[in-house]
């Protein structure tokens, strides 16, 4: 069973509690740059849109493939993409390779890091106040997403039949 932390940008308010929780529990500091997930916000005309950026647990992880020393490996109870600190040379290959910007170097140690899913109980998820971060079984998520998107077509059919949308 594969668990992922799913993100819902529409629900994210940009409060960055996740950054605080992550940096505090992994590094003992309140230091956003050391957090393994970052909230990226765009402000325009008094409107703010935010999205949490974190490891997507790729089936073919570019970070692992790019690592020249084999420091990145799948491990832990969650099968996360962990880093063997003693092998990491701080070259940033994984940082550039990741299509999501979810691999970074810890600015205090210059060792690569990314979300380790807190050994199967991600604290950011626990404290996210809006459900923008959820810890879910990937299969169930996929099915739910299929149902949500299929709903568009089902609604269309109903409208064609002259029924109330969403009835």
């Amino acid at each position: 069973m594969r668990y992922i932390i799913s993100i819902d940008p529409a629900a994210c308010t940009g409060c960055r509690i996740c950054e605080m929780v992550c940096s505090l529990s992994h590094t003992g500091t309140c230091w956003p740059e050391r957090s393994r997930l970052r909230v990226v916000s765009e402000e325009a005309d008094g409107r703010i849109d935010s999205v949490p950026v974190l490891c997507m647990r790729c089936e073919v992880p570019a970070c692992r493939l790019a690592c020249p020393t084999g420091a990145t490996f799948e491990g832990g109870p969650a099968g996360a993409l962990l880093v063997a600190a003693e092998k990491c040379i701080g070259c940033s290959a994984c940082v550039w390779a990741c299509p999501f910007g979810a691999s970074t170097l810890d600015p205090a140690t210059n060792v690569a890091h990314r979300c380790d899913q807190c050994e199967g109980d991600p604290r950011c998820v626990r404290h996210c106040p809006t459900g923008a971060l959820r810890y879910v079984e990937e299969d169930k998520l996929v099915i739910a997403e299929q149902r949500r998107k299929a709903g568009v077509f089902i609604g269309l059919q109903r409208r064609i039949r002259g029924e109330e949308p969403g009835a």
Partner: protein
Amino acid sequence: MKSDYLYAGKILWVDLTYGKVWTTPTVAYTERFLGGKGIGVRIVWEKSGLPSVDPLGLDNVLSFNSGPLTGTMMPGSGRSLISSKSPLTGLLGMTDFGGSFSPELKYAGYDHLVITGQAAEPVYLTIDNEEVTIRSAANIWGLDTFETPKALRRELKNEEIKWACIGPAGERLIRFATIIGNTMDSAGRTGLGAVMGSKKLKAVAVRGTGGLRVDSPDRFYEVCARTHDALKASDPYKKIKDRGSTHGVDTYMHSGLAQAKDIQALGQRYEGYQKTGCFSCPLRYMEECRTPGISDGIVFYQWYADMATKIGVRDMMTLQKLALCINKYGYDAISFGDMMAWATELYEQTIIDEKDVGFPVAREDGEAYLRLAEMIAKREGFGDVLAEGLIRAARTIGRGSERYAVRMTQPIDKEPEEYKRTAQFYGHFAEGITGTRLAFPIGDAGKAETIVHAEDAIGRAEIVGTCKWHTEFSALPVTMDVHAEVLSIGLGKEITADELSRYQRRVCQLERAFNCREGLRRQHDTPPDQYFTYSGPEGRFEDTAMDRSKFEVLKDRYYQLRGWDLTTGVPTRATLESFGLKDVADELERQGIL
């Protein structure tokens, strides 16, 4: 309090007259004043406290303050408290906004940013960790508060900056101008945007990539986690979660500050809004709205609740247009409501007419108020008179207009019929007109105690660096004990609840001493005469006049609780010394006040 933890460690000073930048250790202030507002008030007391200092002159200082808990996992740790001498009241001016400006400032290495002097030409300040630069604001001066951050990001080629800025109202020294921070929250009360404008400082852009150390990270995480959970389990939280900041209207309702028809108006909730909020805050107190013709923006319940009750405009679209227009120009929506209610009454009483204003003014006429909102921002015609604030505007107009300035001191109040309930709180302490002190006791019994309790809850949050709305003052479970515990763990030094309370009460004495040095005395802690006789136009609000003798009894009680002289209202030497403020007592004596 000395500790290597939680504090960033430095105060950043910027002298705009000479273009000089330097830092001093925060620890010089923490022993007696802990942080946040405590240190902010102390800095203003030291640097621009004397009555001779013009709030809009060279010698006033403007201090952006954070506390030891700012920028941590503690909920509500994103607030920035700004202190200076107010151009509106001439007393201590304090106001605050949410967002993430202060956390970023701490990550850059600074607990406080203190601006002194005045630049010759418009400038803005950039802080990129240790690198502090004063830059020409030639390209952004004149822009509104929506355009300014865009221009800053464009010019600095940096999307990550956090910012604070003024709009055209601050530039034009409108005495109730605001300072706006990212998330578009405004530090609205006491006109500190005009202080920033007088310094020709358009904006501050900060980027900090450092972090804050914590003494016992695991325990600190646990106590913060517990506080987050307690917040989310609380009743007010659930209301805010469902209804955003309009839940605050309930408070207005219960206290008699708003009427059923206003609530109905606010009930026309706007489709397509989204909640947003401040750094490290689960509450999401802001609502984003799309308002055609004005573009998007954040609104806060108080802006429209206030205007709806004061000027009778019930149409949600017009209220939002007003709120956003005011926010773009950068001035205080609450003061605006006061001014409009007053101007409308003058118009009804034919003290002013169409010739003065340029068009008719009538309650519920949203279009007229929108025009006036623009005129104030541009200091055009009658707007120029109003831009000076209520007291000065009444002086300029004369013709008995002062008699109608029931809101002479610009407290936050709503309709005359509520004065009786609230004015005894709002009206009395002139320094209390900052929007950071509210209390809603309806009867007289225990009112003084309630005021002290509310002031201490809010003050405590502002000293430790978390949001005042998170305290027991808003029925949220971040109590004195919680603050004391989380500070003790984070700092690695035991601070008891009593000690924390003592810090707050010490700062409260210093605030009072500041205002007494500016000339505030017992007789000023009184609302205008109309509060005691006023019954509204054509006696519309009979039975609203306050009882003077009851009010004086309440004042006695409050002074006793605070340890102030009953005749003068000045803190006694014994009180000041009991809080370790002998130097403050000596200064008051030098000024012939003690």
